């Protein structure tokens, strides 16, 4: 009996406490990287930041929809009669909450980009701070600011009119079960400014125009202050870019070639502070921005410019060459084409989308001087752009309120097809006539109270998130 117990006890022990490999319970995938483990080194940080930029390139962010929207809802462009069905609701001011695919796609992709930035920002404390790692982290802050800025003005009332109205939910950490409430417009802008300040202080490495740099963040900050109507800060930040960034405007002779080149700059600092890159292997295919303006190479060619935009350029204005006239099948009358994006069908590289340019910053600076009672400097910076583009032009010399009107004209001409015009009109609470079709003429009188000026909160968000309030008018 005793001897049997001697065998039995160790046997029982072995049976009941047989070694198991608890580590196996935490098996993780081999063929993809788990979110929490993805960003642990400076190298990971770089790869993650790069991924964040490809989200910015999405068709419904800077790939096409945001730059298109800023012109089509203003007085620059319209959708032709024979169209492929794109941007109709923006052209006719008939967006509805249910079924507005743009409202969903812009919202969703912006938050996807924000999630990337949040993941990077959350991972940063565990990574040794070097000039590079700080640069990447700064880029994430800048990208998050850019996306929240776009969300705020696309889904919330203008800061200049109703800063305490509802903006968008501020999601600053990744939690897939979150059901956030909408923050006020003001709260969102405050976050955007804070992120841009972080970005500005963190970044020190210039990686080319397809990545955020210190002064790209600063330029964006100037734009944000401009949209807030905070002219003191707009002036400080814009001036910082103009004087310290090292970026310069190109001479007029190089300007058309500048737009014609799809190649992002890596070391030079001409005109572009930040652009979203598309290349031959990574691009939006038929949804590239160039194809919505031109039929070249199989494009949709759905959107034409208003004749008065074309007429706004003098014959000697180099920017007139970025448009052309002709006819478009399926559309009566003369067709005015946008030629800023001509490489959609290229077999080597595709058009990038410019997000912030020095000319814009200079015009912001001019407007800031105007608003801080410095008409001399206002005209000075306004003319730096205007005379550069039109060598025959001797410059604006107006005084008083006309200076602002001159700035707006110059902004319209300089930033056409870059999605800027709508926001100038909105932040200044202007009314305008939107041409929905030029021939036969269909127009819409837009006033600042038009509810279509902001997008509906997508129904997917409202269905999944009971804390969300819909915008008025939807």
């Amino acid at each position, binding site marked *: 009996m005793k001897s*049997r117990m001697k*065998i*039995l006890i160790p*046997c029982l022990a*072995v*049976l*009941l406490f*047989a070694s*198991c*490999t608890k580590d*196996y*319970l*935490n*098996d*993780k*995938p*081999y*063929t*993809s*990287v*788990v*979110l929490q483990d*993805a960003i642990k080194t400076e190298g990971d940080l770089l*790869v*993650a930041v*790069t*991924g*964040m*930029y*490809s989200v910015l390139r999405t068709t419904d962010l800077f790939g096409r929809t945001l730059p298109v929207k800023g012109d089509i809802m203003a007085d620059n462009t319209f959708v032709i009669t024979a169209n492929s069905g794109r941007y109709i609701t923006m052209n006719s001011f008939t967006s509805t909450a249910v079924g507005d695919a743009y409202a*969903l796609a812009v*919202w*969703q992709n912006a*938050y*996807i980009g*924000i*999630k*990337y930035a*949040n993941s990077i920002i959350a991972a940063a404390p565990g990574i040794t701070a070097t000039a590079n790692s700080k640069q990447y982290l700064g880029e994430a802050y800048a990208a998050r600011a850019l996306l929240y800025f776009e969300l705020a003005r696309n889904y919330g009332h203008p800061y200049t009119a109703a800063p305490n109205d509802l903006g*968008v939910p501020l*999601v600053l950490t*990744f*939690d*897939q*079960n*979150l*059901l*956030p409430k909408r923050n006020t417009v003001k709260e969102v802008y405050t976050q955007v400014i804070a992120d841009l300040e972080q970005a500005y202080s963190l970044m020190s490495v210039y990686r080319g125009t*397809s990545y955020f740099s210190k002064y790209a963040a600063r330029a964006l900050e100037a734009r944000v202050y401009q949209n807030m109507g905070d002219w003191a800060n707009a002036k400080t930040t814009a001036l910082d870019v103009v004087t310290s960034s090292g970026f310069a405007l190109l001479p007029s002779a190089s300007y058309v070639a500048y737009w014609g080149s799809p190649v*992002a700059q890596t070391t030079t600092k001409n005109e572009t502070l930040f652009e979203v*890159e598309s*290349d031959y*292997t*990574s691009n939006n295919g038929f949804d590239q921005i160039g194809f919505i303006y031109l039929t070249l190479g199989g494009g949709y060619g759905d959107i034409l410019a208003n004749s008065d935009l074309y007429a706004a350029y003098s014959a000697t204005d180099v920017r007139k060459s970025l448009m052309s006239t002709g006819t478009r099948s399926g559309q009566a009358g003369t067709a005015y084409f946008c030629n800023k994006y001509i490489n959609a069908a290229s077999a080597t590289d595709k058009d990038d989308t410019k997000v912030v340019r020095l000319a814009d910053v200079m015009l912001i600076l001019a407007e800031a001087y105007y608003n801080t009672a410095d008409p001399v400097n206002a005209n000075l910076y306004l003319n730096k752009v205007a005379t550069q583009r039109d060598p025959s032009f001797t410059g604006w010399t107006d005084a008083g309120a006309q200076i602002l009107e001159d700035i707006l004209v110059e902004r319209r001409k300089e930033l056409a097809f870059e999605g800027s015009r709508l926001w100038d009109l909105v932040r200044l609470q202007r009314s305008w006539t939107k041409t929905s079709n030029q021939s036969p003429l269909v127009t819409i009188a837009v006033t600042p109270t038009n509810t279509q000026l902001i997008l509906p909160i997508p129904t*997917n*968000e409202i*269905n*999944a*998130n009971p804390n*969300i309030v819909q915008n008025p008018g939807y």
Partner: protein
Amino acid sequence: MRKFTTLIVCLCLAVSQLWAQNRTITGKVTDEKGAPLAGVTVVTLASDRKVLANTTTDANGSFSAKVTDQAKNLQFTYIGLDEQIVSIVGKNSLSVKLISNAASLSEVVVVGYGTQKKKDVTGSISSVGGGEVAEKPNQSFEQALGGKAAGVQITIPNGVLNTPPVFRIRGTNSISLSSYPLIVVDGVPSFTGDYSSSSAAGNALASINPNDIESIDIAKDAAATAIYGSRAANGVVFVTTKKGKAGKARVTYDGWVGWTTAYGLPELLNTAQYLAYKTAASANNPSQAAKFLPATDAHGNTIDTRWYDYVYRQGYSQNHNVNISGGNDATSYYFSAGYTAQQGILKRNEFKRINILFNIDSKLSKSITIGGKISYSNELNLAAVTSGSLSGEAFNTAGLGRAGLVLPPIIGPYNNDGSYNINGATIGYTNITGTSIAYYNPVPELDLSRSNNEINHIQSNVYFQYKPFKFLTLKSFYGIDYLLTTTDIFQTPVTADGYSATGNASDVQGTYKTWLWDNTVQFNYTIAQKHTINLVVGNEQQRRTSNSFGLNRQTLSDPAYTVIQAGWVLNNPTSLGLGENYLLSNFGSLSYNYSSKYFLQGNIRQDEYSALGVKKGIFWGASAGWEIAKEGFWSAAKLDRVFSSFKLRGSYGKVGNITGIGDYTPYSTFGSGLYGGASSLAFASVGNNQLQWETSTKTDLGFSFGLFHDKITAEFAYYNNNIDGLILNVAQAPSTGLPSSPPANVGSMYNKGVELTLNARPITTKDFSWSTSFNISFNTNMVTALAPGLPSIQTSTSGSETVNQSMPGYSEGYLWVIRTGGVEPLTGKRIFINSVGTPVYYQNYAPAGQFNYSTTADGLTKYVSPTNATSISQAADAVMYANVIPKQVGGWTNNFRVKDFDLGVTFTYALGFYNYYGTNAGLHDQRFWNNAVDVLTDAWGKASDVAKKYAKPVFGDNVSNGSAMPMDINVFSGDYVKLRNVTIGYTFPVKLLQKAKMNSARFYISGQNLAIISKYPGPDPEVSSNGGGNTSQGVDRNTIANGRTIQVGINVSF
């Protein structure tokens, strides 16, 4: 052996002569049926159980033991049988009956980590003997389970060989996960499903030769399944392979040959009919200038091709098995080798298997037993190209089933010079103009292409068992299941799918491995001969890994090459996969019975699973039973004269389902991407770190009784299975930044029903006997909740057509089709019924001033729907129309024996369900497609035609008869009764056999799928285009029917 026995006996005799004062005890040892047992160890024990001497029984089961006064007991041991210790005080002769303890006997069922006496079972378990699944023209055992057990539904979804059947126990129990039961083969959960990535199906369970199966025990309720915890929700099927039986080596040979043919193929138009009908249809559509002309072959005859003849064939099959089993008191073994080669009804579809199985058990000492199993199987699953019948293939252009239906009879497979009739990728059609044919010529594909799969499958185990005391058993068990699959696809550059890439070849290697180690302690004790306690505690760990990679090569440089290894220009990686999971468990089972009258049992298992967010869960089941027939009042009331037994039982418990879940569901992951030429992270998948198993709460109540000494036995069960936490992908708020919807435990549904099994042996005489077994199961399936923001789930057939919609308040996969109102008698227009019940008239060709969709029969009033649409669409107008899950399934088996002849007849049936016969839409499609002959009688032809089924033929019309949108006219009741199997056998008389030195011999002839009683218009109401899909059942789109097989076979043993 016999010499040895003799020697022992002689020695004993010699000893007895030395000590004359000792007495001799003689006796006989038999098994429970009274047959003598040779080789039983007979040990003489002293009062302190000290071994004094031992001997064994002879060939007649007799023994003779010389014992001294010291000897008090004799101990009888024999492998596979319960040990007995018998007192010899005051005795000189003994008669001992040893009772089997093996799982193999019908009195015992396998319950997971052990066995239980059938009469002690309080859970719901059905048992099917191995004989029921052997000797059938099947590839895997479960194909033969249909109708054999209540609550078990087997449907074979198509006629492609080695297709995994749809296997459901008590209904469909999931939406997104698998509803396939857990199959435990000799203690190791097996891989299930199709492991071929070619067009030939490769069922993982086909590696088990049905002839090697001893028993199949099907656990259905929570009590019976809870011991498998998180994998138990779909039921657990215990497959036990044959083990050796002690005694002289016994050799058995089974063999059969069979012939399989397609039946019930729809009758199609011949050339004359086709020309007339299509020409008329063409005349009805002035907008299309389609023209059809007859063509002549090389002999000057008009071409009239019956495409079925080029696609189908009579398949020839053969099957051979040899097994040897035997053993002595210490060691027993079973060895078998099998070969089968089966041809399908589709040309080039074949299944070949070579397998061996070796089971051995050896008693090293009185307390230690070791044993193990080696099983190896090599299977070839062969096909030329897609059948169009496996899941996802329904709309394949190359689908052979479809080619047989769709191709016009006026073109042939060959040109008159003998070359293939092809036009680039498609078939050539010079005599048809004004339209184009995008389908392939099946003949060159069948000649030149291949889509093959090979599976090598190893299933082995080894165990060590230590029994220090009679009441205590310690066991350690280690098993593996390695499945290696190789796919070899070659698509000819000559035509069809391989044409555009100038040839295409893919090879994929997949390795799927399981190892499992479990350790158990079993305590078994009876107190005062009344209280029987059985306790099992143990732990188990299971590791599964999968690894696959493949190469796809395109552009053949020289048509002489036909293998992937040489002759290609482009290379692409394909089928890359790497996964692992781990399941760590502790479990316990306690059963108690009082005088075999009152029974209690509880099972509990804790599982920790790597693939879940919430890894750890506890599952349990409890049951109770009451054998009323053993109560005093029962016999007092003289009920025992009628009822030989009457048992009530009930169970309740909570188990889980994780089958089919991905390996890494908790994790959100990044893949890789590019931005500006720099590598980047790209969000790849969205996980849920709160994800857990689907939960199944099962209630089971039942009773069983036997009448007239169990001449009639019956079992009745009611069950209610509530499933909560169904895993569905639920859209989160987009502001979370997720690119796709993560899985979450949200939905719920139930299956409830009753099951009835009746067994009877009405006649049992020497020369004639009849036994019959009938079962029926009534099941109600109902989806009760999906997720917020997810009102319904639509499931497509092969990504092309959506007919199934699951939503709360309906059974899963309900047919969702557009209603019609017949054919308008004056104009032959199809009448649709829109969402609000308004008739809408459709004409494919609208003359000037008329509309395609009109609210008036004259076509002049444009249809405008309530949502301003101008046409009928499924999204706007379809209704929840009919259920696809059968309400009743079951079977009826009869066995007759007249002297040496036997006859077995099995029916299976499924009732109360509907199929969407999508093939019918194609059969009446008014493009160039060939049509069923009923268009000649049932299609509208002239203004006086009333009550026609099909619209006026208008060339190009794919809307009116259902190709473009699923319609109610193609939904049919699928109710069927199938004469599944008829077998007539003759057993040769023993006298005759003895001369041939044989033990037994039987010859049989058998027929499979001989008849179907069904109103279903397609060839086979059992088929499904979507395989085992939960939410996409009941769709028959271009699916190959099951074949009809006649086989003749013999089994002999020596």
